[in-house]
């Protein structure tokens, strides 16, 4: 039985459709990210789960129990907010103890639980500090401990890292995942940062325009985007307008250049398709006056940017296509600007979408 179910959630704000029928089920202990640009409905969905918003229709079911009309303070849901949400008048320990006081835990049991939680998030040394004496990252750790202290049935995280520095962000997201796995708590994580979503989640729901575009494991979302939006939103993707040249052998015609692509096999010749190609799938060969061997796109490097381990190249192909390719930085000096090159990629590396 799924532990948390969102059943056909719909929500309208005036004429704007914030959610147009969102359904997703989470198994117990699963970590799901809702990923999308601002205005895609991810925060609306989260606030409906928390009970801060009422859906126009649809249900929220936790462990088989319909909680749609239940007040937020009766849902047993832990939440970590985007803004710093610690109570400024309480110390870290008092913040974590707040939900337990509400639940009337005896003080000895409460203190033990508070100590345990602050230890889990690595803040045993800061129990008596007030929020303004803690860094942003520490505050969010206390907020996490506070949300988890009440032993919630579901943990909700609303862009908890967006106010933090890049380095702290990476550390803390790994820590959130570690704590979540350790406690086995069912978690919904809202973010607009694809790297964040892909690195910590069991599954990712990419949202756009109030609906789920694709729901799948991070590898599926990255490697096999199901829609044009997902392809454009996740990572850098080369999009090549092309036409099926040969159905059986699997070849496409990209504006005059014929290239092998396994994924078009079985499609009728002459059909217009969109070819999706990751920059890291591309290999380049230099061309020094020789005519290119068939099966690639000839072109010229127009820009080069150094990104550390890899170097990103922009290539203008002779057929008019623009491509982005990643090459290892160690071999990048062969591909300076204005260098003539041939672009090749394995025939099984390109994805194909209907136009």
């Amino acid at each position, binding site marked *: 039985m799924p532990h948390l179910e969102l059943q056909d959630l719909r929500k309208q704000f005036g004429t704007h459709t914030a959610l147009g029928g969102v359904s997703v089920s989470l198994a117990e202990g699963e970590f799901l990210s809702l990923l999308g640009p601002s205005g895609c409905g991810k925060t609306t969905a989260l606030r409906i789960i*928390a*009970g*801060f918003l009422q859906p126009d229709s649809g249900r929220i079911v936790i462990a088989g129990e319909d909680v749609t009309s239940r*007040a*937020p*303070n*009766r*849902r*047993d*849901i*832990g*939440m970590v*907010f985007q*803004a*710093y*949400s*610690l*109570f*400024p*008048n309480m*110390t870290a320990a008092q913040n974590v103890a*707040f*939900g337990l006081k*509400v*639940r009337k835990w005896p003080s000895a049991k409460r203190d033990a639980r508070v100590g345990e939680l602050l230890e889990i998030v690595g803040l045993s*040394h*800061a129990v*008596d*500090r*007030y929020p*303004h*004496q*803690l*860094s942003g990252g520490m505050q969010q750790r206390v*907020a996490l401990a*506070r*949300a988890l202290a*009440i032993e919630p049935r579901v943990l*909700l995280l609303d862009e908890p890292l967006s106010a933090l520095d890049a380095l702290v962000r990476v550390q803390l997201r790994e820590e959130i995942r570690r704590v979540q796995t350790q406690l086995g708590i069912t978690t919904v994580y809202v973010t607009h940062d694809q790297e964040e979503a892909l690195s910590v989640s069991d599954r990712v729901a990419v949202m756009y325009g109030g609906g789920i575009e694709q729901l799948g494991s991070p590898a599926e979302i990255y490697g096999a985007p199901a829609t044009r939006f997902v392809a454009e939103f996740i990572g850098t993707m080369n999009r090549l307008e092309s036409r099926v040249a040969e159905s059986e052998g699997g070849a496409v015609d990209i504006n005059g250049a014929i290239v092998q692509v396994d994924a078009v096999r079985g499609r009728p010749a002459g059909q217009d398709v969109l070819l999706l190609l990751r920059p890291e799938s591309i290999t380049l060969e230099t061309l020094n006056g020789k005519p290119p061997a068939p099966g690639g796109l000839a072109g010229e490097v127009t820009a080069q940017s150094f990104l550390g381990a890899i170097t990103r190249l922009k290539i203008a192909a002779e057929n008019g296509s623009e491509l982005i390719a990643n090459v290892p930085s160690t071999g990048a000096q062969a591909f300076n600007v204005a260098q003539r090159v041939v672009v090749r990629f394995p025939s099984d590396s390109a994805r194909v979408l209907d136009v």
Partner: protein
Amino acid sequence: MPISGMVALAIGALYFLVPVFATIKFSVEQGHAGFGLQAYRQIFDDPQFRHTLWFSVQLALETTVVTMALMVPTVYWVHLRLPKIRAAVEAVTILPFVVPPIVLVVGLFDFFKSFSPDWLLQDFVFSPKFLVCAYVVLSLPFVYRALDAGIRAVDIQTLTEAAESLGASRSRTLFRVILPNLREAVLAACLLTFVIVLGEFTIASIALYQTFPVYITTIGSAQAYPAAALTVISVGLTFVAAAIFLVLGRIGLRKRRTALAAGMTSVAPAAVAKLGEA
């Protein structure tokens, strides 16, 4: 501080201090008999002084309690759930500024007299409670502004939602989470209300109540030296009231700072910098 700043400060200080010192000097004069505390003795011996002062303090306390009970939840709720009507609420709270007190008191009297049953007339309209009611209205603009400024400085939306998600009821959220963070604003609002009531003359005079300001005016129109003494006493009282509220406001702050100093060995440099600013 640059010279121009010091000059400005000196002029400002003179503007306030000269009248106070002049009044103090006048209050200790005894006609041709030199200086002495005769005027003060006269005031403290007058039973009316104690009666009217105690009456005004009671009115001020009652008004403060009623105003806070009314306005704190209102301002909180308007900010939390009805942000769209904030401008309208602000406009309404300004009205007592626009309506002169004399119009306010006559209007309130006429309104309550024409609608109230007899028992309400006796127990409310013709009792000092009516005065409290008028003072609540009078202090609205100040109280609303003080609370509004305080509440804007706190992310009440997030704090409320955080408390709710942890299982807290509305009242627990208000008293344990929101109010402690509005401490300074609430104290400022209390001080303003208290001082307004302690100094209000028009309404009390028209409604025929012997409050402290009415007493001051009565003395002032008849006895010159005791009136000066009375003025000095009331200025002193206002200072004492302000000092009490300031001290109350500082206590919370100091507690937090002490905690910080105790944990100084492990405190991050950023927090130390913050302490310096404070």
